[in-house]
């Protein structure tokens, strides 16, 4: 059943997301694009753009993936899967039932898992590059946006707007 799969896959992603939600983009791309084929690479790119323009956590991409795969119920189950376990862990840590976060084994695990997740983000970026920069003009758009992001304080929403506008003009 697709709803159960959405729930469990996003729960696994959330439990492996050491280093926060942004790093977890690589885990989402691996699962939603490479493993299941739920999204095309270009739809995944659109989802990342939406995550940049909406407030709140990046992992809210789960809502997008869930909706694309299974409509409203899919969106609900995927979102619940992405946030239920991390929420319970954080609340339990606040309660100090057990100092999960201070446990040195968990810390050591996290210290190894976080770099791995970042390394995988490199694969995700490379995959998207292959998808996007097949023609030179779009590579120029990417370089321009990168330069604007590094040297100006223009918010990401507007940078995505610049990209969209140039894409429209190029077509």
């Amino acid at each position, binding site marked *: 059943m697709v709803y159960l799969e959405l729930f469990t896959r996003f729960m696994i992603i959330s439990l492996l997301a050491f280093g926060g939600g942004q790093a977890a983009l690589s885990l989402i791309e691996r699962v939603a694009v490479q493993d299941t084929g739920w999204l095309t690479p270009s739809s995944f790119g659109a989802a990342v753009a*939406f995550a940049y323009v909406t407030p709140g*956590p990046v992992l809210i991409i789960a809502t997008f993936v869930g909706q*694309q795969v299974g409509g409203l119920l899919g969106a609900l189950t995927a979102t619940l899967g992405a*946030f239920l376990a991390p929420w319970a862990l954080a*609340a339990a840590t606040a309660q100090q039932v057990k100092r999960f976060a201070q446990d040195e084994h968990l810390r050591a695990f996290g210290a190894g898992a976080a770099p791995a997740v970042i390394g*995988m983000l*490199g694969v995700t970026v490379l995959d998207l590059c292959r998808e996007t920069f097949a023609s030179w003009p779009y590579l120029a758009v990417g370089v321009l*946006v990168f330069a604007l992001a590094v040297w100006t304080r223009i918010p990401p929403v507007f940078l995505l707007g610049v990209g969209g506008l140039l894409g429209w003009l190029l077509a």
Partner: protein
Amino acid sequence: MAPASLARLGWLFLRIGALAFGGLGATVAVIQRELVQRHRLMTMTDVTEALTYTKLLPGSTAVQLVAYLGWRLGGWPASAVLTACFLLPSGLLMLALAYGYSSLAHFPAVVAIRHGVLAAVVALLLLTMHQLARSTLTTPTAQALALGAFVVVGLLHINSAWVVIGAGVLSMTLLTARR
């Protein structure tokens, strides 16, 4: 906690969820402004403590910061309600965008715009990766693990979950070996 005050807190966290544009840093800033400065429900020390612990846990740190502070404000029920309130604005917005995307994605103009946006997304992701790398890949071990994961996943197509678990277990083994 009285229902009336939970409702008030819920409204406050809806606002925080709607204003927190730009990831964890923005969430911390909005929480500091709303909870610490305007409503004086907690101190900045509480927020820093919550951040210290939740950063070590897997999952979205922004949501876990809210879950942790929610628990401090009223136990498990408050934590559940306030976390849901925090997520609601972004969830609804993302849902609307997903439905819009489904119905518009095939229009030529949208396809053209999307291609340009995608180029911008890659640029922003590169920058994000650089920032994450600078803050996390500070030791030779961390750098080696990142490079290893990049090679293993990129070339050998091994399931990502096993790679992350493998890196975590390796790091735990190194900790035990050092003693």
